């Protein structure tokens, strides 16, 4: 049976940090033997959620986005936390599309709003889900 393994990173809300997270997450999923197409779906979902989170700093000086990914025998779980509260989804064109795309890439996605901050949990089965 596959062991549980965890990947985590904290990124400032900059595009190069996001791109770095993407490369590291992709490499970790490959090392964790997640099938490449499933891995790409997970990477895209994580990317969209992080991009969304990075976009709405309440205080830009103290606005980090934290991602923790865990792979277990049945799937991959990703938790993205940030300290901002999300603006309305109509605030920029294409923004609703990002969360729609993220949702389509995983089996479950839930968004919890706290004060202050937002947590998004993504879960994708690795057991042959298309």
């Amino acid at each position, binding site marked *: 049976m596959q062991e549980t393994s965890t990947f985590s990173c904290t990124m400032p809300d900059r*595009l190069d940090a*996001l*791109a770095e997270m*993407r490369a590291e997450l992709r490499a970790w999923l490959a090392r964790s033997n997640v099938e490449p197409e499933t891995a*790409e779906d997970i*990477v*895209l979902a994580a*990317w*969209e959620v992080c*991009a969304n989170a990075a976009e709405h700093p309440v205080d830009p000086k103290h606005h980090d986005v934290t991602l923790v990914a865990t792979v277990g025998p049945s799937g991959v779980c990703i938790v993205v936390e940030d300290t901002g509260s999300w603006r309305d989804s109509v605030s920029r*064109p*294409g*923004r609703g*599309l*990002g969360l*729609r*795309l993220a949702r*389509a890439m995983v089996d479950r996605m839930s968004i919890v709003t706290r004060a202050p901050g937002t947590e998004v949990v993504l879960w994708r089965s690795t057991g042959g889900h298309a």
Partner: protein
Amino acid sequence: MTQAAVVDLVGGLDLGSVARWEAEVGKAASTSGTVVLDLTGVDFLDSAGVHGLFRILAALDGQGKRFVVVAPRHGRARRLLEILDLQSLVRLCESRDEAIDDAA
């Protein structure tokens, strides 16, 4: 009949690169009345990329250009456009040859 201008989009079509691709397509469109956007080499497409792609197509349409998009079945670009149910909004070809024939 002028030759179609082909833009080969390779790598990411995303938040970080969409502006560069928009500029590339704009340049190509200034040389021909027909533009082929080849997405075969796109290995990462995000929502900003999808949004940018449709902005690009709308701009070409507004300039009276003909355009065809190459996005092979089982490729990343085709899959995401299908998931978002956008595949019917634009003609998607399997190969560049098919796109060039189609645009002729």
